[in-house]
């Protein structure tokens, strides 16, 4: 393929603005996939992506497009996720491209991730083509979006293309704009090989499949390659490009996006962001990679049934093969036994991992309340970072504690300003900026403790703004925090997995909520079960689950027996999802409910 006929681009946007659907239309129009295999959001291949209707991982596909100028172009498309947890996926994808399509939902206008993802693209000096999507909807306000493109995004509205990813209207125009506006990759095939690893995937039969963008030189089947990060060398078994599946090609050369299989056993050895070169005639410098994904949320995963520990270990190992951003290490808990302390990119990432472990490996697990990484300065001057409430030292040895903050940019219609500001203040936010994007829409900037947005800030933001507010955030420095450790006792026994760290002013309210949640989820026992929240020895909240006094069904004759047995069998299965703490059965949901305590009710 001639270099000037190649276009590498990503589709970026706020969540749900239609990236994957637009990718569908492009695949359809260019005939990259046989008609019978077409389905909605074709590139969202994971079960969990299909079920939730969101993209989690970036996905690449090469399209052959015959343009109006009569030439056939190779368009390497990368669909990216829109959810704030997976911003990291976006930056990886962008490193492989010369341009982006920035989608804006015409009914919603510019949203927080529209802005944050645009900045990522501008940082990499990529060509940006604004695309106004969903113009088929009656609520579409195309004029407003044109204004916003100019005033809020600082882009030229004359470049903007209007389309409906659903009906296909305007999609040809986008393809033409890609050919016309996005520059082809630079011609650097004569230089020594430098290819950026932007993703890697584990294939049971072939080992690691490296997804890369070749910037300089070329790589051929049979070459010895070297990875800068590890300095290790591998023999290339296969190279090729992505269609809907992998298509082998003899060579991958500068400007192209494709894959390399080289007998690498673990994804850890082909780190995303690393540079690949040739063993003979290596390049001297790696490409500018990108930072490792930072875990911001920590939580522990335990098997409900201790016999599943081995399977859990295997499951996490395998997930890690395809998800480099998942971090974990062994730990043990008095109430839950052996498990793992894990680091996640955000709560959605946590949920995704939890769901995949349960589904793909058939293990019931318990996830403990998520927490951030605190920094504790001891009176001795020693500084430690903790990411587990159980590691919180005795308060008497602490000089001061600090917690991570984030800067949140929230975009919302003016009429929701009141409740959104109230929500930010309630979550210990400090206002930095407020500005009117247009007479109806406001952009707010708040600095907030990360710990406060962990739980349900996002859901609450959506609910107080009836779905209209959106937010993006970036990390800030640590700031001092007044923390206490709250323990939860069930039937007088401390359940260490339920302990949490809280801002002092919030401790009682959260303690009460958790006790109330537990009361709802733990079923009645044949004895009374007290539930308490305590700081040190001091009980700050309590609830009691009264004893079960009567549960027996009145009738049990011939026709009832089978049904009753099945119920018992079902309950028995249910017990597998219960954790015995002392003589109390705590259902898995109880641990989860702690994760989702709403601050108001």
């Amino acid at each position, binding site marked *: 393929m001639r270099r000037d006929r190649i276009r590498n681009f990503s589709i970026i946007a706020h969540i749900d603005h239609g990236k994957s659907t637009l990718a569908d239309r492009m695949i359809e129009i260019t005939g990259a996939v046989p008609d019978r295999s077409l389905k909605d959001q074709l590139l969202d291949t994971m079960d969990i992506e299909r079920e939730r209707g969101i993209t989690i991982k970036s996905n690449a596909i090469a399209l052959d497009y015959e343009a109006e100028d009569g030439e056939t172009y190779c368009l390497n498309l990368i669909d990216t996720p829109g959810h704030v947890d997976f911003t990291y996926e976006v930056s990886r994808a962008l490193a492989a491209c010369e341009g982006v399509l920035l989608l804006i939902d015409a009914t919603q206008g510019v949203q927080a991730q529209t802005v944050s993802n645009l900045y990522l693209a501008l940082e990499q000096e990529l060509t940006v083509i604004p695309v106004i999507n969903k113009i088929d909807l009656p609520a579409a306000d195309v004029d407003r979006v044109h204004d916003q493109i100019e005033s809020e995004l600082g882009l030229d509205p004359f470049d903007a293309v209007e389309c409906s990813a659903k009906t296909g209207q305007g999609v040809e125009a986008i393809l033409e704009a890609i050919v016309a506006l996005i520059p082809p990759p630079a011609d650097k095939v004569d230089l020594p090989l430098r290819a950026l690893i932007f993703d890697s995937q584990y294939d049971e039969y072939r080992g690691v499949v490296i997804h890369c963008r070749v910037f300089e030189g070329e790589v051929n089947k049979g070459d010895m390659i070297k990875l800068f990060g590890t300095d290790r060398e591998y023999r290339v078994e296969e190279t090729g490009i992505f269609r809907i599946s992998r298509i082998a090609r003899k060579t991958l050369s500068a400007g192209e996006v494709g894959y390399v299989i080289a007998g690498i056993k673990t994804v850890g050895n082909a780190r995303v962001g690393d540079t690949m070169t040739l063993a003979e005639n290596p390049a001297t410098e790696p490409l500018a990679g990108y930072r490792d994904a930072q875990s911001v949320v920590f939580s522990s995963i335990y098997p409900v049934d201790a016999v599943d520990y081995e399977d859990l270990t295997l499951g996490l190992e395998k997930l890690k093969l395809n998800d480099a951003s998942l971090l974990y290490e062994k730990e043990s808990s008095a109430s839950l036994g052996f498990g793992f302390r894990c680091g996640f990119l955000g709560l959605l990432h946590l949920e995704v991992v939890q769901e995949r472990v349960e589904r793909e490996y058939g293990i019931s697990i318990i996830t403990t309340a998520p927490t951030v990484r605190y920094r504790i300065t001891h009176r001795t001057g020693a500084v430690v970072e903790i990411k587990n409430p159980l590691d919180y030292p005795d308060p008497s040895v602490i000089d001061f504690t600090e917690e991570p903050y984030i800067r949140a940019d929230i975009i919302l219609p003016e009429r929701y300003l009141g409740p959104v500001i109230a929500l930010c203040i309630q979550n210990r936010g400090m206002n930095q900026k407020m500005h009117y994007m247009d007479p109806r829409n406001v952009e707010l900037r708040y600095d907030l403790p990360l710990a406060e947005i962990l739980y349900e800030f996002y859901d609450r933001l959506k609910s107080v703004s009836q779905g209209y507010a959106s937010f993006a955030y970036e990390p800030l420095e640590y700031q001092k925090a007044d923390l206490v450790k709250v323990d939860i006792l069930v039937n007088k026994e401390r359940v260490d997995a339920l302990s949490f760290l809280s801002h002092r002013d919030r401790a009682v309210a959260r303690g009460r909520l958790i006790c109330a949640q537990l009361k709802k989820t733990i079923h009645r026992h044949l004895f009374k079960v007290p539930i308490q929240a305590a700081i040190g020895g001091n009980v700050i909240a309590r609830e009691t689950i009264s004893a079960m006094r009567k549960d027996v069904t009145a009738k049990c004759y011939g026709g009832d027996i089978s049904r009753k*047995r099945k119920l018992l069998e079902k309950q028995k299965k249910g017990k597998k999802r219960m954790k015995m703490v002392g003589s109390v059965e705590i259902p898995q949901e109880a641990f989860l409910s702690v994760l989702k305590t709403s601050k108001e009710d």
Partner: protein
Amino acid sequence: MNAGLYVHVPFCRHRCHFCAFMITTHRDFLADWERAVIAELLLRGSAFPETFDTIYFGGGTPSLAPPDSIGRIIDAARKHLTVSPDIEITLEANPGDLTARDLGELHELGVNRLSLGLQSTNDDDLSFLTRHHSAKEGRDAFLAARAAGFANITIDLIYGLPHRNREEWRDRLGAALELEPDHVSAYQLTYEPGTPMRRFRDKGDFTSLTIEEEGERFALTRRWLAEAGYAPYEISNFALEPRFESRHNWKYWEGAPYLGLGPAAHSFRDGRRWWNHGAVRNYVRAVDPKKGEESLTEAQIRLEMMFLGLRTVRGIRIENLPEGLLDRPRTQSYLDQGLAEMVEGRFRLTSRGLAVADGIAADLGGATTP
């Protein structure tokens, strides 16, 4: 073990608001039903070489079937099954359905146990339960049955109605016992899914008793009946003398074989259970009315015997308890807390334990296999 025959009579005058049984108010199917029941008897009878020593006409409302129809079914059973000379034949009846003549005829036919759907001795209760008979009609029906020669009469009562205190229930129970029934089935009102009663409660038309109140009523009912001479032998069943215990129902609780005829009826023999189409229309039309079946594993049979045994005074023979169960701290704590006891080589629940028998069964059942 001797076998039992159950015949489901699916017809009712109307549907009571609390009832979740398979019934129909269309009595035009009566003739078809009788024909189909007898056909089913012929179809299945040969699979039961056992001697039958009980027949139970349950419903629905068996008293809506003409006595001669009942007679033909009993005849067919006598002809096609091995029947014990000392057979217990029970028929459920609603007050007001049967004339003195009907009662006499049924008695003649061999029906020797009458189960009378009294439900309450208070007119407010009866109207809350949407029963179509009065307290007086209930009493009259009882006396008529006695007069017709029935020496073994059981009455059904429902307690735990909303907005009734325990004294009110005691009075109603007392009035019922004045009739001197030989046996009492006292059922706590339950709100079965899909019933109007459940809907009204969920809608907030009335407030049902709390679990604490239900527990108290359950215990008091057992105590009051025991004090009146009625020995509890199952969760809801009480007999003045052992010979008045329902021989037929014991078959369900002890895993004896039974053949169930009629819509929705269940049969059980040799670890296999099957059941019929529930809708009368489908039942009478089917060449073979069997709708589904299951073969129980050893473990499933043990589980059934366990939870059924726990509901009765006989409990479970220790050697039939799953291995290691007695050594579990949980089991031990039931004994320590007085929820269970060991009597004559049997593990059984006490009155307090019976109130939570479902929870204990779930717990012990959960432990039956690792």
